[in-house]
């Protein structure tokens, strides 16, 4: 009987078998890596806005409090986006003819709202409430990142459920004194654990992992 295959096919056959196994492993790993890139998670993507509003300028340099614009953050589920009016309180006096502020003035003039691009978006089936987080000592920057350093705002965290649970399962890792909640430059102390545990007692913070805490 004549050989059907060339000598090399032995090697090829084995290589291809082991190769396949290894390849699957690599692909799995790759997928995992890709899923963590900002392409998928959209983290650290500074999104284009109608007006290039700089939190860095307003917060870090001018020292505005978060609540000056996001007025309802302490009382409502939504932190609130400032109406054009709020911008105009200052910008009717300063930078009155800066070109980049034209959209703001236009909006105020012919009362058409500015439509900003949402940076920190949650799916519609997630119900997040700002006020209660504020009330329990979760700082703005804990989730929104170093807003004071953002020229154009980006999303600091994935906002995946896994990420939410990281804190909901162990709040002590992130809590800060209520006095520091709005401090955009707060640095967690070295003994965060002890502080956190103390705050959990003081603020009656529970580990909320019930599904209906966020989904209804």
């Amino acid at each position, binding site marked *: *009987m004549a*050989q*059907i*295959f060339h000598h090399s*096919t*032995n090697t090829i*056959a*084995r290589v291809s078998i082991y190769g396949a196994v290894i390849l699957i492993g690599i692909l799995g790993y790759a997928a995992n890596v890709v899923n963590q890139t900002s392409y998928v998670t959209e983290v650290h993507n500074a999104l284009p806005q109608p007006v290039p509003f700089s939190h860095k300028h307003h917060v870090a340099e001018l020292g505005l409090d978060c609540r000056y614009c996001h007025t309802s953050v302490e009382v409502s589920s939504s932190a609130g986006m400032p109406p054009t009016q709020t911008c105009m309180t200052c910008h009717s006096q300063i930078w009155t003819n800066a070109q980049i502020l034209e959209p703001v003035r236009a909006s105020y003039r012919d009362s058409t709202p500015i439509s900003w691009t949402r940076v920190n978006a949650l799916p519609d089936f997630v119900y997040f409430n700002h006020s209660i987080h504020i009330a329990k000592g979760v700082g703005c920057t804990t989730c929104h990142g170093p807003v004071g350093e953002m020229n154009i705002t980006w999303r600091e965290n994935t906002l995946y459920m896994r990420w939410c649970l990281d804190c909901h399962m162990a709040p002590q890792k992130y809590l800060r004194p209520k006095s520091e909640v709005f401090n955009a430059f707060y640095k967690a102390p070295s003994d965060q654990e002890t502080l956190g545990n103390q705050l959990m007692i003081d603020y009656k913070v529970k580990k909320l*992992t019930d599904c209906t805490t966020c989904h209804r």
Partner: protein
Amino acid sequence: MKQRETIYGLMAEFATPEQLLEAAHHTHEAGYRRIDAFAPFPIEGLAHAVGFKGSRLPLVVLIAGILGGISGFFLQYYAAVIGYPLNVGGRPLNSWPAFIPVTFELTILFAAASAVFGMLAMNGLPTPYHPVFNVPRFALASRDRFFLCIKARDPMFDLEITKNFMLTLHPREVTEIEP
């Protein structure tokens, strides 16, 4: 000495399993160690005759099975008790009776897979190319012919002597195997 590199070994063909078995025994007794027998179906005792000491496959399968079982249970235990403990219908977190089926299935899965792939690996398959296929009539090894092969690598191998030895086994014919 030269011909050793030029050939893989010698192949003797037999008509019946009995002949092959007998031949194999003789060859082994004659002191040949690097020998192999080929048959269209498993023949009782043939492997032993060519000096096979029995397989370690069962052990591999046992270990794989145990691994599958343990990992299966702890996968479930982790998910239900550590990863995200949830009150499901008032049942205890570690509802171990409910974890038995999956544990069992994974035991079987691991064991079965190891059995198959273990067998292939130990047999060194796949080997699409093999010198014995150079023997013209070897195609019949999967029909109704029985072959005995003494490899050139065998320390006792010498083309002439071995060929003569093989002819003493009353084969239908003895052929040299191209490498």
